[in-house]
């Protein structure tokens, strides 16, 4: 696959502060890449660098095989959608869409055609004569996407486009953006701090922290095989259960032991041998713990502390050998606080991290 956007050894410093450090990223043609991280991790900064709105300190940016490191934003073949929509308030929707084309001195007949096409795709034809102030949040964001659409760009850049919308609209527009990507097949780079958006939209997710990419992989890999303790804790809600302990041998079996309780981890596919005595952190997702059924060979006792029914799911907070654990079960299965339950752990789906390096073993 030929790459659409390629970032080489990119660094950005604001004075003495290093915001992005030696960042390398290859984004394939037609790929939907999500930059995910908490605020201040540099994800929006990276997007602004790609857009050309920020001058980088070192490195190169290529778009469609062309070195655009020193190019103006308009010459990079990018369209950008902002969190606050950034529609020009004094212009009608139609003018908003055509402004960039008029600046580029494209013939009026061509402009009309492109505006008509974009407004049809986004279903905003009835709104063309209105001002942004007369639109709802969802409509405004649709117009903002349209503004990128009319310019016929190679790469769409989204800077937290749904963060200002309420939950219902957010999920609707999320689906629309995905549909748009499926029909247009453009490269899209999407910045968000919302892991649901990241997991649902992305072909690949780049998880960022302190200006560095922690893991770049498809959503399934990110979710099931997180590369580090940070990634494991960041993705998933409620968060993965972490138990601190060490590896030990019990005869032939390898176990993880914490607070005097052993967990058989023979089923875990480690990248290297798990030496006895090594300090590690065991991570188990709430839905990978079985309660009272399909327990497997090893059974643990626990007490229900709090129950949080969430409709489809039921979340149990359990006390187990000095740990607090969250477990996700079917919403139909109810447990009262204080009741005793039996737990089974599926170690083939667990993660083990080195306590020192915090990397996956």
């Amino acid at each position, binding site marked *: 696959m030929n790459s659409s956007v390629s970032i080489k050894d990119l660094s950005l410093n604001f004075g003495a502060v290093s915001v992005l450090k030696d960042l390398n990223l290859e984004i394939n043609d037609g790929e939907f890449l999500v930059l995910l991280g908490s605020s201040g991790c540099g994800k929006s900064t990276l997007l*602004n660098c790609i857009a050309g709105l920020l001058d980088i300190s070192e490195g190169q940016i290529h778009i469609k095989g062309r070195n655009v490191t020193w190019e103006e934003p308009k010459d990079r073949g990018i369209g*950008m959608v902002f969190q606050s929509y950034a529609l*020009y308030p004094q212009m009608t929707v139609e003018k908003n869409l055509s402004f960039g084309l008029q600046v580029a001195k494209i013939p009026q007949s061509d402009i009309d055609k492109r505006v008509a096409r974009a407004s049809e795709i986004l279903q905003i034809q009835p709104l063309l004569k209105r001002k942004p102030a007369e639109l709802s949040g969802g409509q405004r964001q649709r117009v903002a996407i349209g503004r990128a659409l009319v310019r016929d760009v190679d790469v769409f850049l989204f800077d937290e486009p749904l963060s200002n919308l309420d939950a219902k609209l957010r999920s609707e527009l999320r689906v629309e953006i995905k549909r748009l990507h499926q029909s247009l097949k453009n490269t899209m780079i999407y910045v968000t701090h919302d892991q649901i958006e990241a997991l649902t939209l992305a072909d690949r997710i780049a998880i960022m922290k302190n200006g560095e990419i922690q893991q770049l992989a498809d959503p399934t890999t990110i979710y099931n095989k997180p590369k580090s303790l940070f990634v494991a804790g960041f993705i998933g809600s409620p968060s993965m259960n972490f138990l601190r302990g060490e590896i030990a041998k019990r005869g032939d079996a390898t176990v993880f032991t914490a607070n005097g309780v052993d967990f058989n981890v023979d089923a875990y596919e480690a990248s290297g041998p798990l030496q006895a005595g090594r300090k590690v952190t065991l991570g188990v997702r709430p839905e990978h713990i079985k309660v009272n059924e399909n327990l497997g060979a090893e059974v643990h006792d626990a007490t229900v502390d709090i129950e949080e029914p969430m409709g489809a799911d039921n979340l149990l907070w359990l006390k187990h050998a000095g740990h607090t654990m969250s477990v996700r079960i079917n919403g139909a299965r109810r447990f009262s606080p204080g009741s005793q339950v039996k737990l089974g752990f599926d170690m083939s789906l667990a993660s083990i991290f080195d306590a020192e390096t915090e990397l996956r073993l």
Partner: protein
Amino acid sequence: MPDTIALKTAEVALAPVKSFDGPNGKKPKRVLSPRNIMLYGTLFVAAAYYLLPLYVMIVTSLKGMPEIRMGNIFSPPMEITFEPWVKAWATACTGLNCDGLSRGFWNSVRITVPSVIVSIAIASVNGYALANWRFKGSELFFSILVIGAFIPYQVMIYPIVIVLREMGIYGTLTGLIIVHSIFGMPILTLLFRNYFASLPQELFKAARVDGAGFWQIFLKIMVPMSLPIFVVAMILQVTGIWNDFLFGVVFTRPEYYPMTVQLNNIVNSVQGVKEYNVNMAATILTGLVPLIVYFVSGRLFVRGIAAGAVKG
């Protein structure tokens, strides 16, 4: 007990129109509460305090001199005459000239209009560049400019006289217009920079992605969103420049004296009798322009905000 409750709810269901006792609906307000008396009393006293001098000026300007000599400054005119107004505008004497305030009025217009336009035009671009196009040393430049706002004018008068003389425009209207434009620059630039900095940065970014350049973004995106701040700047400059006395005296010749200087000369002229009615009329005439600007653009200003010109 349960029965009575059931009974009551049944009653309510049958007669839903105000079947309940006690306070309900809008709380009645007492007109003559101690709070209202204090509030309106204070407001009335303050208003009277500010309006009384204006009242005295207006009634005095409408009286003839014999009536003024009687000394009842608060009594309304027995016989209304517009003679003092005409005299103040057209024939009052200052030294050798006897064409009243009219000459000063037109001088002031010729000074104020270009000064306001030039200073606002330059300051708005300054503010825009400083807020949106951070360049190397822009913060330093801005700091120096702001310091300029705090230096007393008097310190700079003599150097500026020399500079204007060397440029050959000392004593001309052009010279005075340049001086006014320069002295308005620090505060206006500060005003515009802060306003543009408060506009969403993403709008500016979006316009850059759309391919607009420095001037296109300024003229097509920023200026249309900035009516309120332009009105504020205009009010500041018109009143400031119109009311200026010092620069008018120092940097121009008598034939270019602005209205304020002319007014001073009329009021302070020593020959003959003090014509209080003419002086009052002349003073009101001079103050009329800033007043009109306040009334007209103040309303525009409020409308600009109410129309959502600033909201995204």
